């Protein structure tokens, strides 16, 4: 069992996330006000809300791309049988330091996060190396095969269509087998084949115990996989179906509004 907080032993397959009174301001603009949210290992949280509500900011803070102006963000690695995250330190939980957390976080953002002038294989190889993965070539080959880009693996990304770039972007996020997946409108631009692959991948990850936080405001089939719905507006959490609760009523309301 991982006692060190920088190495996750394979047995530890779940990651929880906690926001406590997180606030974020940009100049005089408050993007997040007093957000407190505890996401337990293995939960699939749908983050809903209008544009400008603070969803992207919340995800970027969770991805450790920025620090909150005030408040605490914590990650904890848990043994599989402990699905409830308690950050107060009972046996089986390890609070993760930022560098260790980055190792297990994957994010799909608004931008593709890949280099246009490198090939798909080169891009994935780069990130496989940066994440310190063993057997880079094999991992990259598997990944590129899975997302359906094997035939275009040696073409530079600049020549890719929108759908292909999005697939590569998702493949990049999943390359290092993340245990916490942060998705900001991940289906945008995906073609039909890509959507099918993405849906199947999400299903597999959910079964595997990956924690997912997905932001979307469109009608998205993947929302069916959600175990929890949280709505956010003007930087504050408005409604939360809660851990173990039923997200469907909230999802239905928000779908109707969309």
């Amino acid at each position: 069992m991982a006692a060190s907080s920088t190495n996750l032993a394979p047995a530890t397959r779940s990651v929880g996330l906690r926001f406590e009174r997180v606030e974020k301001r940009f100049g005089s603009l408050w993007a997040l006000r007093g957000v407190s949210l505890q996401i337990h290992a293995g939960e699939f949280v749908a983050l809903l809300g209008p544009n400008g509500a603070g969803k992207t900011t919340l995800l970027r803070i969770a991805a450790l791309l920025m620090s909150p102006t005030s408040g605490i963000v914590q990650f904890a690695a848990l043994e599989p049988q402990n699905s409830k995250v308690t950050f107060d330190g009972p046996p089986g939980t390890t609070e993760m330091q930022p560098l260790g957390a980055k190792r297990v976080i994957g994010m799909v953002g608004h931008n593709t996060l890949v280099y246009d002038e490198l090939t798909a294989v080169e891009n994935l190889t780069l990130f496989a190396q940066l994440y310190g993965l063993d057997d880079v070539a094999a991992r990259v080959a598997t990944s590129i095969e899975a997302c359906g880009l094997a035939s275009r693996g040696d073409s530079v990304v600049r020549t890719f269509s929108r759908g292909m770039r999005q697939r590569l972007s998702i493949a990049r996020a999943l390359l290092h087998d993340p245990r916490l997946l942060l998705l900001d409108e991940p289906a945008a631009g995906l073609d039909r084949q890509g959507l099918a692959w993405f849906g199947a991948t999400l299903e597999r990850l959910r079964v595997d115990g990956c924690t997912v936080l997905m932001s979307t405001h469109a009608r998205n089939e993947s929302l069916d996989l959600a175990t929890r719905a949280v709505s956010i507006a003007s930087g504050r959490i408005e409604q939360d179906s809660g851990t173990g609760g039923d997200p469907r009523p909230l999802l239905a309301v928000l779908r109707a509004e969309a």
Partner: protein
Amino acid sequence: MTTARAAAIILAKELRLEFRTRELLNATVIFSLIVVVLFSFAFEPTAAESRRYGPGLLWIAFLFAGSLMLHPSFSREQTNSTLDALRMAPISSFSILLGKMLANFVFLSLAEIVVVPVFSVLYNVSLTGVVARLILVLVLGTLGLVITGTVFSAVSAHARMRELLLPILLLPILAPLLIAAVEATASLLTDEPSHFGTWVAFLAGFDVVFMTVSWLLCDYLVEE
């Protein structure tokens, strides 16, 4: 993952990216050559004058070329937000900075390898017997240039007019480096009493100071 290993990966990425298109590299070499040639139109130095003033010309050419070539270091990462991808990876921010510094060092050195012999030929300045020490000066001077230049590339990447801003920020800071590099080079080429050691030590000191400051401030440079 150690900082050195991460920096090496990023260095490889930067090199691969640049050698695929070679746009920046070509432009840097051509620009340096233009500056060197243009000077000869401005005044026709005798061989002795070339040896005295040539080093100044050479380093001015490198400074200008360098300050123009350094800005894409970080501004290029704004396409597709690839800098975010690097920041999310479990590597230190210093490794990102270091990898880019090393890449810029390679690019500028390649330009110097082309320009220095051309200069030697055009201005009839013989380099025999001083090549090793000349390389030492070039290495230390170029290091100082890329250390500060890469940092300011990060600083100016978020500003308007960043192509023009980078030289404006960089060149005054490099004034001491210019003096030291020119004097060190001149002491190799002329018959005046040599203070080569002093100037080389100064260059090394300059590099150490600004590398240290870069290391201390790297988190702020790379952050959102």
